[in-house]
């Protein structure tokens, strides 16, 4: 088997090599297409991450509220619902079922629906991590907050959450990397991200190995970048003298 990396410099319509490997005047090469697909992967993932963080932190926190059994139960139901349906099925639900059942959603582009699907799916996992992060804190922290005369909101804001967030950074890192991997499922509803590019370019050029290698490489680079960024954040927010050991909430 011989390599043919030239394929990335080819025009996507006439399949002629372009000299600079980047198309000019409205033409695009496979390289152009792949980079734009990478952009879609990154945008879908980051937007979904944002949504998942907001929802996940909110629901995860609500699940630990004392004396609010209804709220806790609703939060648990949310987590069970989004955890027990495969992501692909959830994407189909958002893409095919939601716009039909709710006419308001009809004009929403597929890209946004995929962000919703991925964001809600991941929010359940983040909610679970936030809950276990808060519950990993010694009970005395909560009581100390109460004893200081803080309201529930205040002791969450100033006592529990700042510590809990630091504890859950490692699992959040792997969840962020998971979002990037899971964004590949968007191929099923024709969002033009990396996996979609891989499938189509493989079909058009029949240089599957080169195309897949490049796409796989981009996924690995993305995962590695996330890993480094999260490690940097973890280092920046570390409290001197407080070592978090294995998510056990340690002191």
């Amino acid at each position, binding site marked *: 088997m011989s390599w043919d990396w030239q394929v990335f410099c080819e025009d996507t319509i006439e399949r002629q090599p372009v000299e600079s490997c980047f198309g000019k005047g409205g033409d695009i090469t496979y390289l152009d297409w792949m980079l734009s697909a990478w952009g879609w992967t990154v945008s879908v993932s980051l937007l979904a991450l944002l949504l998942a963080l907001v929802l996940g932190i909110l629901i995860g926190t609500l699940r630990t509220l004392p004396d609010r059994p209804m709220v806790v139960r609703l939060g648990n139901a949310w987590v069970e619902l989004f*955890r*027990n349906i495969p992501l692909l099925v959830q994407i*189909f*639900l958002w893409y095919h079922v939601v716009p039909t059942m*709710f006419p308001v959603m009809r004009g929403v582009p597929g890209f946004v629906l995929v962000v919703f699907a991925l964001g809600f799916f991941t929010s359940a996992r983040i909610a679970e991590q936030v809950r276990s992060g808060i519950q990993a804190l010694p009970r005395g922290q909560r009581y100390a907050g109460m004893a200081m005369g803080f309201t529930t909101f205040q002791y969450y804001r100033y006592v529990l959450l700042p510590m809990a967030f630091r504890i859950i950074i490692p699992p959040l890192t792997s969840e962020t990397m998971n979002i990037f991997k899971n964004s*590949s499922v968007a191929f099923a509803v024709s969002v033009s991200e990396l*996996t979609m590019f891989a499938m189509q370019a*493989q079909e058009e050029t029949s240089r599957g190995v080169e195309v897949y290698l490049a*796409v796989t490489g981009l996924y690995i680079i993305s995962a590695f970048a996330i890993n480094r960024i999260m490690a940097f954040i973890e280092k920046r927010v570390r409290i001197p003298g407080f070592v978090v050991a294995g998510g056990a909430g340690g002191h």
Partner: protein
Amino acid sequence: MNLNLDFSFYNWDLISNFVLKGLYFSVMLTVVATVGGIFFGTILALMRLSGKKWLDTPATIYVNGMRSIPLVMVILWFFLLVPLLIGRPIGAEVSAVVTFIAFEAAYFSEIMRAGIQSIPRGQVFAGQALGMSYGQNMKLVVLPQAFRNMLPVLLTQTIILFQDTSLVYAIGAYDMLKGFEVAGKNFGRPIEAYLAAAVVYFVMCYALSWLVKRLHKKIAIIR
């Protein structure tokens, strides 16, 4: 809200014609990938814990590589590569089985590794002091305890695996989701089909995770 749903087309004929075939494949794939994944995962974990560099390094590269690539890409890779390597085309179903065993082995090996490392070193030393060989020590002392420690995590991974089988959609294999989709298309009721698929997946996965939770409690009491 437009709730003009009609589930009346779901009768036993339809279910046995479209859905059961897919359900059978999904379950079969889950079981085969779990058994195969645990088998190869144990080997990978033992390689990583062997302390020998020439065993550890390739296993580490394999496991970390598999874990940093999306499953869909792995499915596509195998569908492309296996025919190139063996020189003849293979069906989507066979390809899916091979892919899932190879992919899950990486995840199971990490669970195994954590499980084996959770066994106190003293247990290994005690085995050695009794004159056991490495194989005997693993088989009689370490692995039985490790398996029990990690059983809940293994089962949870199996539930995730069952959900992931829906991704064989990428190469057009006929799993349960595909069964629902085909049924929905044939009867012009795709919305109901997707909803029904979601409900079935939910009920199955929820029931399984409830069982795992109970099992977890049972094991926790004994320990």
